[in-house]
């Protein structure tokens, strides 16, 4: 049972905690109403919400969100499918080879995805593939590096004792290596997913004709300030939801890590 005192969502202290947020939104609402330069450049939250509602009703928003998320998921899945097995092989079986390729991989991981983006456009056209290739490139490095570190960091004692008890290769992998490496793998997946969404917006701004990034960029070009703010809000909210999802998932999947030393 929770021992902590129950705090009503409407209690004063709860609102005091969020007073800065409330003040921020109040200032945002009131500042443009004061007129002047701010009026032309800043859309107050009420107008932004109305624009969002209109975008939602016309179905435009749903289209862009689905397209953006689809690209992010496609690139991320591709990266995970390649990086995870590769990471296990490099971290587990081919240690010498891993030492040879690590400097090259580090170098490639440093390559700024934006400098490659023009190449992707030339190679794949401005189709979906160029955006997905970009997300793939961004995601693959954190997943790969963290998987390698996770697999290399497994306590050899665990593997040896499992072997001495006669565990076969397949159970060894699923019951010992995978759980032991999961914190590292999950860190990689989390970093990959975070940067995927981050980069996607920029990729869509530079070369796309739909998606959330394009929505923002197009609104700016056409000077549709409420739409620009609305799209920015949607992107930020989506990013936050993604972040929260990952944190919850981590707690659910890796919760046993915290409690294991206690028993």
């Amino acid at each position: 049972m929770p021992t902590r005192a129950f705090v009503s969502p409407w209690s004063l202290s709860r609102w005091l905690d969020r007073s800065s947020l409330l003040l921020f939104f109040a200032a945002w609402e009131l500042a443009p109403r004061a007129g002047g330069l701010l009026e032309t450049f800043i859309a107050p939250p009420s107008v932004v919400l109305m624009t969002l509602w209109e975008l939602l009703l016309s179905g435009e928003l749903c289209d862009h969100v689905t397209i953006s998320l689809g690209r992010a998921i496609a690139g991320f899945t591709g990266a995970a499918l390649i990086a995870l097995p590769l990471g296990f092989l490099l971290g587990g079986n081919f240690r010498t080879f891993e030492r040879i390729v690590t400097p090259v991989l580090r170098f490639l991981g440093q390559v700024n995805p934006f400098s490659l983006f023009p190449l992707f456009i030339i190679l794949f056209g401005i189709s979906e593939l160029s955006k997905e290739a970009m997300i793939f490139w961004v995601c693959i490095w954190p997943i790969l590096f963290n998987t390698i570190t996770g697999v290399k960091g497994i306590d050899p004692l665990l593997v040896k004792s499992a072997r001495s008890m006669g565990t076969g290769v397949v159970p060894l992998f699923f019951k010992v290596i995978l759980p032991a490496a999961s914190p590292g793998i999950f860190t990689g997946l989390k970093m990959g997913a975070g940067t995927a969404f981050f980069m996607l917006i920029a990729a869509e701004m530079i070369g796309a004709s739909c998606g959330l990034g394009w929505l923002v960029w197009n609104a700016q070009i056409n000077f549709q300030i409420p739409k620009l703010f609305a799209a920015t809000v949607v992107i930020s909210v989506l990013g936050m939801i993604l972040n929260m999802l990952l944190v919850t998932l981590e707690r659910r999947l890796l919760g046993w890590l915290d409690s294991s030393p206690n028993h």
Partner: protein
Amino acid sequence: MRLPAAVNSLLLRSSGVLIFLILWETAPRLAWVDPYFVPPLSIVVREIWLLLETGDLSRHLLVSSWRAVTGLSLALVVALPLGIILGRWLTGLASALEPLLRLLSQINPFAMLPLFLLFFGIGETAKVAVVTWVTLWPILFYTIIATRTVDPLQIKSAAALGVSRSEMLCKVILPAAVPTIFIGIRIGASLTFFILIAAEMLGAGSGLGWLVHNSAMNYLIPRIYAGATFIVLLGFLLNRLLLYIEASLSIWQGSQSGSPVAGQSRASSWRPDRGSAVAGTAILVLVLILGALEVRRLNQEALAGASSSSSHAKHFGTPADSSDGGL
């Protein structure tokens, strides 16, 4: 370890790079990959040499690093004092502001990019402001955490010895906070290059991002590789420089837990390291000054050349000029 092991590991490490470079050269030559899309290493090197000879590359390099360093230093100037004040003295205000700061820091900076372009135009201010915005948050958060988690024992014993407030800040709090603050700075610096290159691609007339974008628009593929190589180099160098400054600023950390004898070696190793920190900072300041001059000259050139079409033609291909983002 034995010496052969060290040699061995060096050989192992460099062989990967060597094989990669050889593959880069031979694969296009033997037509394993299309040499049009992946030009061999030698052609890229020649392109870099050509760019260096005309002075183009060094100019873009200087402009890009000036933007990065200016944005980074502006963020430092704002975030460091703010972080120290919020973390050390106004802790109540810090916890009140935290939800707002979290919200602002989680806004995708790329989504903010058009807003910045809207407010500051496509001039230098927009680029520097974007970089500042991006680097501000990690530095601020890590500074707050660092100053808040200074060992209370150190602060109490310093207070018991009667140090003044300014001495407490400079001699106790800051040295203890430096390693954590530098984590924030390094995170900020790595983000800087992502956002800077994107900003230069979207709306600029110079800089490495513009170079890559412009080459792509004109199908100068070796040039894309040349630009990309230098973007990697620049990011790598900035990271190294920061690591270097960090190592020399927190040199005492290593010998902290050592025996009293370590004090002697510390005294001898302190000076050169402080010197190298000064050297690193001097490089950054030099980039700031030279870059400022270069940027000013470029902007004046752009102003003067706005009427004549010859210099304007160089802007071909930036979406900001073609006024339509959807390619």
